[in-house]
């Protein structure tokens, strides 16, 4: 399992983040991102994951994060500021990581060996 700090994530480009995540997950690692991904990065990760899927070999990823704080101040609403949902995120191989339960502050997952 690799726990990636926010500082490291901030230094990486989108391409580097996606590459790092998928390379690790393909090796069977579970990745925990301290600060999660931006929406466009999540979309890129989904796209790149699909390109890697190989029936019988790699089925894709499981990705889970906390629901996040969706409250906004009146100024944020006036400015139509996007809600920051990026919180701690767990990513792993779809055949090894299974989400059991999630609430506002706790993610329970089952991790199995290959």
């Amino acid at each position: 399992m690799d726990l990636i700090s926010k500082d490291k994530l901030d230094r990486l480009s989108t391409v580097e983040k996606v590459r790092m995540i998928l390379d690790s997950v393909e090796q069977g690692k579970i990745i925990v991102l301290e600060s999660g991904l931006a929406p466009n990065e999540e979309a890129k990760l989904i796209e790149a994951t699909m390109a890697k899927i190989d029936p019988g070999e790699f089925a894709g990823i499981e990705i889970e994060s906390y629901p996040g704080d969706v409250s906004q101040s009146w100024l944020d609403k006036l400015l139509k500021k996007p809600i920051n949902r990026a919180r701690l995120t767990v990513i792993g191989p779809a055949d090894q990581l299974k989400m059991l339960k999630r609430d506002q502050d706790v993610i329970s997952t089952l991790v199995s060996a290959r």
Partner: protein
Amino acid sequence: MGIIKKIRSNFSSAFKKIFKRGRRRRIGIYGPPNAGKTTLANRIVRDFTGDAVGSVSDIPHETRRAHRREGVTIESNSSSVVLDIVDTPGLATKIDFQDFMARGLSEEESRRRAKEATEGVVEAVRWLDDLEGVILVMDSTEDPFTQVNVTVIGNMEARNLPLLIAANKIDLDNSSPSNIKNAFPQHPLVPISALTGDNIDVLYEQIAKHFG
């Protein structure tokens, strides 16, 4: 961007919106596999053109290519809006061909379907950049806080584009549209059954209001 510049930009986009009323808008129907996207697309297109968009099935990833229907005029009360409707393949982060085999498909067919489904997901993700609004279809019997839903909502919010949530399958006993509302309270939501047509008129009103 400075606050004054941002406020000016928002007023400018609102001003443009007023004078662009009547212009055709390209709207995507998004959601996870088996949420009822194609059922909804078919109902909308049938109600206003008498035609259909695509086939539906209980097996996930039935829609593996995006289908666009151009110039659908949605009328509700005194307002109307002309839309190009794009029915997209279900978004997912994993596709296992064995899931299709468990539903009775042969191994060869399952592998082919899995391959086509991955291409469909890529197409759906790429369409996000070419849309002017999204109807996000969620299965109201399922946990709404999935990565797919969060990704679509986050991308629309980041680009400041309108989003309408259709909490589908309210005809089922265990549906709970309130769970979706609690998960994403900042976006308009209409509980519907795309299958039976329950509450579909309210959805049309909201489509005309938010995408008009």
